[in-house]
């Protein structure tokens, strides 16, 4: 429990995010079956493996290099849309990331830079029923928390809750991007798999810094 994120904190965050995605990968594929081609869990399982490998094999103690490696590794997965965007997210974070420790503001800035990189690659915006619906509120929450001087664990917990709410909010929407857009009305009532993945990612980040029992495991 610290107020700066050291390289070992970052590694723990990445490992926990990997664990969350791995644990729920079958559910993610089920969600993708409703509105896509059913492979999202497989891709997130690969992403999770790549995050773990990046952490395990990190050659230096450089946070920025670690995030960049995560990004390239995830981009290297033949996972279609979601791995391209998730990889882009990490590469974007790396662009503004500190080389060593982060304060809460720097962390929020890095996440925002990741989000901006994603928003450069896709025209999808909140409400289009994509992973953007979870990413945007998570990054916004983190920013607000940083501005209000919240400690990092609490800030990340808020970001995770916002991401989860964002994922939930995709249920009543109709998809406009990705494969799901061709299914139109069929996507109604089901959460977007990519949004759920982003919520799981932030859940992992948060759980890495907060004792496990404090977390509300939410709806998924």
């Amino acid at each position, binding site marked *: 429990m610290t107020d700066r994120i050291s390289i070992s904190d970052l590694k723990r965050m990445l490992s926990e995010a990997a664990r969350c995605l791995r644990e729920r990968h079958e559910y993610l*594929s089920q969600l993708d*079956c409703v509105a896509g*081609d*059913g*492979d999202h869990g*497989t*891709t997130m399982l690969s992403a999770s493996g790549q995050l773990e490998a990046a952490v395990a094999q990190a050659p230096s103690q450089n946070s920025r290099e670690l995030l960049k490696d995560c990004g*390239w590794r995830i*981009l*290297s*997965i*033949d*996972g*279609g*849309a*979601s*791995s*391209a*965007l998730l*990889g*882009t997210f990490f590469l974007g974070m790396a662009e503004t990331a500190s080389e060593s420790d982060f304060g809460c503001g720097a962390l929020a800035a890095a996440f925002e830079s990741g989000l901006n990189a994603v928003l450069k*690659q*896709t025209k999808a915006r909140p409400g289009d029923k994509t992973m953007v619906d979870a990413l945007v509120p998570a990054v916004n929450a983190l920013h607000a928390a940083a501005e209000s001087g919240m400690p990092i664990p609490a800030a990340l917990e808020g970001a995770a809750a916002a991401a989860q709410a964002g994922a939930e909010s995709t249920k009543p929407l109709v998809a406009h*991007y*990705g*494969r799901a*857009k*061709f*299914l*139109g009305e*069929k996507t109604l009532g089901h959460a977007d798999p990519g949004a759920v993945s982003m919520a799981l990612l932030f859940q992992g980040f948060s759980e890495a810094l907060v004792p496990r029992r404090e977390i509300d495991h939410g709806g998924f």
Partner: protein
Amino acid sequence: MRMKKFINDPRRIVPELLEGLALAFPDKVRLAGEGIVARAKGKAADKVRIVTLGGSGHEPGLSGFVGEGMLDYSVAGEIFAAPGAPKVVEALRQACAGAARALLVVLNHAGDVLTANIAMQTAAREGLAVKMVLTREDISGGPNPDDRRGLVGFLPVYKVAGAAAEQGASLDKCLEIAERMQLNMRTLAVAVRTATHPATGHPIFDLGEDEMEIGMGQHGEAGTGRMQLKSADATATIMLQMLLDDLAVSAGEELLVVINGAGATTLMELLLIFRRVAQILKEKGITLARSAIGEFITTQEQAGFQMMIARLDEELIRLWDAPCNTPFYNRI
């Protein structure tokens, strides 16, 4: 329907099938990295390279068209999934070795486009001379080109751009040719029976025992028209009319027609469909200038087909007629 396929480890399908391709056509293609299929024979340094990318499980598409007169590099992703951008960057680096220039042909599917954009940005940062063309001809996507997927129209685009490149055209000229081809083509798909996903074993979509769906995408993305299964003539008539309307074809124009089998639909059926298309074009005074019939891009053992029409001008006809020599498309 239970999956019945001859595979080994489902996670190793793609590398194994590419290995098989290279073993079967050693005089035409070679493996040039993980998921990268390249021409076996070199090409003069001043000629433009044609590069493409896309998911696997659609054989012979896309890597089956690497060879003289068509593709120089194909980057193959996992089953039904775009390849990762780093592989595409690697292929572009190889394509542009010795200061060569490359045209990247991308089929409009979300994952492919994201990958391609990321790869293009990296290539630009590395100073590689690459331009990109996006094929988007599936009229079931509606009037907005962004919503139109890239289907079998990649075939004429590879063909004419590849021929232009082979003849020494500049990168801008190759791009212009590819753009002209893709702007003048329209495709519509119909599905009647699903396929199983070779990695998961699950059916890709559901369709009633006597239904067909017009507009079905390459991976079972729903189309616009679910209806009772129709005869060859009726199906061909409906689909052709939709395509002619969308492309606004007039009597006297010259068309290329491609009939692409989805996998299980027989060549027998494709020939019946083609027959009706040829009859209708004749009735309408439209010239059937060129055609291709076969399996160019499949979705495993899905039953159905794609019908593509394209308006040809003299230059496009000349490029379409130019020789090519690839594993699954040849012209003498």
